[in-house]
C-alpha cells in the first residue's frame, strides 16, 4: 500500500480559513480525486490564466463567509404562505369575496374567491412574529428566523418551479445550487461528498435538481435514498458490497493496486492513473465513514425524542433532520432534506386543512429540533438553514377548500449564520398573492445564500460552451437587509 498516500495531511484549499492564495501544488494534489474539491478543470483554467499573468489564484472566498454550510429543507409541493408564516388578517375578513385585483396572466388552474386561512395565528417570541397553529414548535424559534415573505418565481408548475428553485433555470439543464456551492467551496471532509441530498424526489426535474450539469462531476449531489422510500433506506448507492466482506475487499484492492503499479511502471508518469488509484482508496474509506455518520444509534435518547424519532408521525422526517445535523458536523457543505412522499406532499389543490395539517405535523417538531440542536452545539452560528417549497399557494380557493400553485409571492425562511432573526423581510399584498415589498426573486435568494457563504454570485462562474455561467444567470441581488 506504499503508493497509496492519502492526502489527509495536505491542507485542503477548500477549508482554508484564511483568505490567501492557494498553492498550485496543493491544488493539483487535490484535484480530481475526491468528491468535493474545486473542479480540476476550473483550477487548470485559472492556473493557466495565472501563468499568463492575467489572474492569480485566490482563495475560494470572495469575502469573509458567515456560513460554512447549508441545510436546505425542501417542502415539496408548495406550502401555503398565508396558512403558515405570512399572516394576512384582511384575507380572513374578506373570506368568500372576489379578489379585488387581477389574477396572474398565466395560472396553473382555475381559482375562485378569497379563502380564509383555517388556522389561527399567534404571536411568538420577543419579535412577536405571528405563526399559524400549524407550526407551534418552529414558532418557538421565530427570534432566530428571518422570514422571507416576498419570495417569487416565474413558473407555476411543479417541475419548472422545482428546477427554478434548485438550479435557477426552468428551461435548461443547469447545475443545482448545492453543486455550485460544492464547486465553490468543496467538502470539509475528504472522506465524504460535499453535497448530499437525503430522500430527494425523482419527479419534477429529478436528478437535475442536484446534478452538476456542466460543472465537474465531483460537484454533483450524492443522493441518499429517494422520496418514495422511507428514510431508513437512505443510503449512498453501491456503498456496500452485498457479497464480500470488507476484509476480502481490502485484499482485492491491494491486488488491484499491485497490478496497477506494475502496469504503470511499464509506462511513464501518468497522473490520471494515480488519481484513479487514489479514488479507490477514498471509496474504501467512505464505505466505513458513511455508515458511521449515518448511524443514529449513537445519539442520546433525548435527541431521539427531540427529533421525534419515537413518534411514527415525525420519525421519517426527523431521521432526515438528525442525519443532516450529523453530516453538517462531519463537514458536508450542502445538505438537502426533502419532505415528500409518494404524493406531491404539500400540493393541496383540495382539502387544504387535512393535507397541510398532516404535513406540518410531520415536519414541525423535527425542524424545531434541528434549530435547537444546532444551536446548542454551536453549529447554528455558521450553518445556514433554508426552508421552503417550489412555490406557495393562492389566497383564492381552488374548488371548495383547496389552494392552487402560486409562484408570485410566497414565503421561505432562513436561520443561522448571522441571518437577522425575528424579522419578516419583504411583504406580499394584503391577501398574500403577489410579492410587493422588497421582492425577492429566487435568483435573489440564491445570491443572498452565496453571499452568506462568502461567495459573490457574480464571480462564481463556470465557463462552458464559450460563456461564463452563474447560478443566478443574468440576475440576482443580494438582500443585505436579511443579514445581521
Amino acid at each position, binding site marked *: 500500500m506504499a503508493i497509496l498516500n492519502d492526502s489527509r495531511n495536505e491542507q485542503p484549499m477548500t477549508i482554508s480559513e484564511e483568505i490567501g492564495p492557494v498553492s498550485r501544488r496543493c491544488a493539483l494534489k487535490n484535484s*480530481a*480525486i*475526491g468528491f468535493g474539491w474545486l473542479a480540476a*478543470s476550473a483550477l487548470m483554467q485559472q492556473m493557466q490564466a495565472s501563468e499568463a499573468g492575467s489572474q492569480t489564484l485566490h482563495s475560494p472566498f470572495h469575502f469573509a463567509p458567515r456560513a460554512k454550510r447549508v441545510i436546505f429543507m425542501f417542502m415539496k409541493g408548495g406550502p401555503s404562505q398565508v396558512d403558515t408564516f405570512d399572516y394576512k388578517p384582511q384575507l380572513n375578513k374578506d373570506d368568500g369575496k372576489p379578489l379585488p*385585483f*387581477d389574477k396572474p*396572466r398565466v*395560472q*396553473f388552474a382555475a381559482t375562485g374567491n378569497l379563502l380564509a386561512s383555517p388556522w389561527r395565528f399567534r404571536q411568538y417570541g420577543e419579535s412577536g412574529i405571528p405563526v399559524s397553529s400549524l407550526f407551534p414548535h418552529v414558532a418557538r424559534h421565530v427570534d432566530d428566523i428571518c422570514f422571507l415573505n416576498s419570495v417569487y418565481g*416565474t413558473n407555476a*408548475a*411543479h*417541475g*419548472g418551479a422545482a428546477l427554478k428553485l434548485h438550479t435557477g*433555470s426552468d*428551461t*435548461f*439543464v443547469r447545475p443545482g445550487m448545492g453543486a455550485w456551492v460544492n464547486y465553490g467551496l468543496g467538502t470539509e471532509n475528504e472522506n465524504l461528498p460535499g453535497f448530499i441530498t437525503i430522500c430527494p424526489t*425523482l419527479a*419534477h*426535474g*429529478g*436528478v*437535475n435538481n442536484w446534478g452538476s450539469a456542466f460543472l465537474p462531476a*465531483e460537484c454533483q449531489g450524492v443522493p441518499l435514498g429517494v*422520496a*418514495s422510500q422511507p428514510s431508513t433506506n437512505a443510503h449512498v448507492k453501491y456503498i456496500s458490497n*452485498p*457479497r*464480500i466482506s470488507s476484509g*476480502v*475487499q481490502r*485484499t*482485492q*484492492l*491491494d*491486488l*488491484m493496486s*499491485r*497490478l*496497477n503499479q*506494475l*502496469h504503470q511502471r511499464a*509506462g511513464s508518469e501518468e497522473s*490520471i*492513473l494515480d488519481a*484513479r488509484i487514489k*479514488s479507490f482508496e*477514498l*471509496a474504501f474509506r467512505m464505505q466505513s465513514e458513511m455508515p458511521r455518520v449515518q448511524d443514529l444509534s449513537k445519539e442520546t435518547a433525548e435527541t431521539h425524542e427531540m427529533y421525534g424519532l419515537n413518534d411514527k408521525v415525525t420519525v421519517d422526517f426527523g431521521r432526515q433532520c438528525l442525519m443532516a445535523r450529523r453530516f453538517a458536523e462531519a463537514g458536508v457543505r450542502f445538505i438537502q432534506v426533502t419532505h415528500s412522499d*409518494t404524493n*406531491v406532499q404539500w400540493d393541496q389543490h383540495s382539502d387544504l386543512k387535512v393535507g397541510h395539517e398532516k404535513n406540518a405535523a410531520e415536519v414541525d417538531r423535527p425542524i424545531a429540533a434541528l434549530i435547537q440542536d444546532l444551536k446548542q452545539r454551536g453549529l447554528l452560528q455558521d450553518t445556514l438553514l433554508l426552508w421552503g417549497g417550489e412555490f406557495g399557494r393562492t389566497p383564492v380557493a381552488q374548488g371548495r377548500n383547496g389552494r392552487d400553485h402560486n409562484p*408570485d409571492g410566497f414565503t421561505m425562511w432562513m436561520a443561522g449564520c448571522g441571518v437577522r432573526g425575528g424579522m419578516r423581510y419583504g411583504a406580499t399584498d394584503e391577501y398574500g398573492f*403577489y410579492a410587493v415589498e422588497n*421582492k425577492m*426573486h429566487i435568483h435573489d435568494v440564491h445570491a443572498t445564500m452565496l453571499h452568506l457563504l462568502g461567495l459573490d454570485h457574480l464571480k462564481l462562474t463556470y465557463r462552458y460552451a*464559450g*460563456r461564463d455561467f452563474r447560478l443566478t*444567470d443574468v*440576475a440576482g441581488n443580494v438582500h443585505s437587509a436579511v443579514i445581521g
Partner: protein
Amino acid sequence: MQVPGSISRLPVNRPDFVADLSFAIGRGSLLSCASVFFSLAVLPSLLAAGTAQNSEEKSPAANAEYFSQKVAPLLQKHCQDCHGPDAQEGQLRLDSLQALNSGGKSGPPIVPGKADESLLMAAVRYKDEALQMPPEKKLTDEEIGILNDWIAAGATHPEGAVVFAEPAPPFDVQQAREFWSFKSLVQPVVPQDVPSEYVSGPIDAFIVSAMQKQGLKPNDVADRLTLIRRATFDLLGLPPTTEEIDAFLADSSPTAYATVIDRLLRSPHYGERWGRHWLDVVRYADSNGLDENVAHGNAWRYRDYIVDSINADKPYDQFLREQVAGDLLITEDTDELSRRTLLTATGFLSLGPKVLAEADKTKMLMDILDEQIDTTGRAFLGMTFGCARCHNHKFDPVSQADYYALVGIFKSTYTMESLVTIAKWNENPVATKAETESLKAHQEKIDLQKTQIASLVETTKASLVNGANSTEEQFPDEVKKQLADLRAEQKKLEESIPELPTAMGVKEGTPEAARINIRGSHLTLGRPVTRGVPVVLQLGQPLAIEEKQSGRLQLANWITDARNPLTPRVFVNRVWRWHFGRGLVASTDNFGHLGERPSHPELLDWITAEFVRTGWSMKSLHRMIMLSRTYQLSSDSSQQAAQSDPANIMLWRGNLHRLEAEAIRDSILAVSGLLDRSMGGSMLHVKNREFLFNHTSKDETRYDSLRRSLYLPVIRNNIYDGFSLFDCTDGAVPNGNRSTSTVASQALFLMNSDMILQASSALADELLKSHPADTSGRIQLLFRRVLGRPATQEEADAITQAADQVSAQLVSEKVPEAELVARTWSVLCQGVLASNEFIYVR
C-alpha cells in the same frame, strides 16, 4: 393594480412584470445585454438649423444641437428596442420627433418646459415602482440630467423629419466572413519538409511538419497488441477477442493492419459504436426529462436509423439532409421502407427536452423552437445560435434578426401535436402497406369472430322456447362452452391487435415569418423577419423559400451545400476528436469566436476538403485517419517532449484514453462472456408518452439487461448510474466532447455494483470450467481474455498470492467449501476487470 397614467401601458396587468422579464427568458441571456443596431441618421442639413430663438440667452440644453448630440443618442440607446421601428410598446415610439410629440397610449411623454410633469421623467427617475424605464437598469444620473435639462429648456429640437435607418446587421458582413471557420474551404498543399520515415500519408506530413517547428519528433509506432486494442475499441467500443489478436499477430503481410481496419469497419458493431457518438451530438434520449419525464416510446427508431445509416456508410451530407428534412425528400417514387427511414430521420428535431407542462403556451413553443435551432446549430455547424434569442450574439456575427429568421423556418414546421398539458410531440405514421394490411386482416378476424358469436347466439335463441327473449343462461351447456371459447378467442385477438408504427418527427406546418421577440420575450413582439439563415453564413444569396414552404428543405440543402465550410469542418473535427480524444479544434461544438482556434488549421482543411471531394464518406475518413502513422504512434512518454508539450497537442505520442461509460460496461460484459450482441429495437418498459417518473418518485427505469449499452434506455434525469458516473452525456444538450472525471463514486460502482459482481463471477466460472485444476492456466486465460496478453511472472505471482489470501479469508468467514474456489476467483477477476490497464486504452 392598474398603472395610473403611464406613458406606456405595461404589457400585462401586473406591475412586477417588467422586473420579471429578464427571468422569463431562457437561453442566451448573457451576463450583460447590449443591443443597439439602429443608426440614427439625422439629415445633416437639419443639424445646423436650430429652432431656438436667442439661443445665447438660454441654457445650452435649449439648442437643437443639444438634442442631436445628447438626447437622441440616449433615446436611441436605451429606448428604441421597445419603442422604435421594431416594437411600439404602449403604442409609443421614441425614435422620431413626430413620435415624441404625439406620444403613445398614455399621451405625450413630454411636457415641454415642465420636466417634473413629463411622464418620461417620471419613468426614468424610477419614482413609481409601476413605471420604471428602461426596465432592466436605471439610467445614470448624468443621463437623467440630460433629459431633464432638455425638457426643462423647452424640449427644443431640429425642425422637420429625422430619419432613422433601417436596421442593418450589427457588424460588417464582409469582415465577419474573414473569421477562420467561415472562410471557404481550399485544400492546402501538403508539406514536403518532413523526413519520409515519419510519413505514411498527408496527415503525417502536416502533423510532423508542425511538430518539427517546435523541436519535437514523433514516437515510434506502437506494438501490434496495442494497435489492435486501440483500433478495436475505437471502431467497435469492444475489446478484440483472443482469436482476433492471434490472427493479427500472425499476419506478416504489409497490409495486416489495413486488413484489421477493414474488418472492423465491416462489423455491424461499428455502427453501434459510432452511432453512439452521433447520439451524443443530437442529445438522444428515450424520455423527455425536464419537468414531465414521459417516455419517448418511439425514439429507438431514430437510434436504429442512425446505426443503420452509419453501418451503410451513408454519405454525411445525405445523412444530415434526412435528419433536417427527410419528410421533404419523399417523392412519388419513394418506396415505403425508404419513406419510413426518411420520416424517422426527422426525429432529430423532435428529441429535445421540452417543458411539457409550461402553462404559457407561447413560451413553451418558443422554447421548443429555440431548442431545435440551438441543437441544429451546435450539432451540425458548431454555432451557438441560441445566444441570439434575446439580443444580438455577443461574440459571433449572428444578429437577433438572424435568429428569428431561423425561428420562422422551425415555426413553420409542425413539431407539436398539442401544447395542452402534458403537451404532445408529433409522431408520423410509418406503417408499410403490409403492416396496414395485416392490421386490416387482424381486424377482419375480430369482426368474423363477432359475427360468429352473434349468429350462434341468434340461432340458439331461435331454437329455444322463448325465442329471442331467451337468456344465455338457458343455452345448452355445449353452446355455452362454444360461446365462451369464441369469446376468449375474440379477446385474445383484440389484445394482440398490432399497433401501427409511428416515429417521432416533424412535418410541414403553417408557413409564417417569425417576429423578433424583444429581449427574448414573446410578450414584446418586434418586426417580422424573412425566413432564412444568418446573413454572414449565406452562400451567395438568401435562401429562396416559397411562400407555402417552411424553408426546412432549403435549410437542409444549405447546411449540406459543399460550399458551406462549417458543416464538413465541424464533422471532420468531431471524428478526429473521437479518434484522438481531442479535436484539432478542441471546442468541438463551438466554431465561433469563443471556441478554440484549430491547432492544425491546414490539416483540418486538407482532410475536410478531401472528405467532401471523395463523397462525404465516413468510412473513408476513418481509413484516412487510422492508416496514418500519427494514429499508430505509441503512447510512451518522453521527458523532453512531455515538458514542451505535456498535453500532446502536437500529437507526438498516442493518447491514453479511459474507455467511455458504454465501452466500460460492454467490455466487461464481453470479456466475461455475458454480452448479448443482438441489435436494434426498443428496451423501454413503459409505453409511449407514459411517465418514467410521475409525481410518485417511483422509478420505472430498468437497466437489468445484457444487451449493448447503446440499447439501454437513455432516461433523462435518471441516466443509468453506470453511465452517468463515467461521464456519459446527459442526453439534453449536444456534446461532442465528453469529459473524463475520476471520482470515488466510480470506484464504488466498480467495487460493489451488481453489474460488476455478476460479470466477475461469470468470468470466474468460465476460467474454472476451462482450467478446473490448473491455477496457472486460469491466470493466463484471465489475462488473455481481459487484457489481451499473457500475464507476466510478477503478475501471476501477485494473483496466486491474492488467491491464497482471499481463500483463507473466506474460509475464516465460513464460506462453504463448495463455493470457495468460485468465490475466490470471482474476487480476483473483479480486481483485474477494475484495473487501470483494462479501463484505460493506450
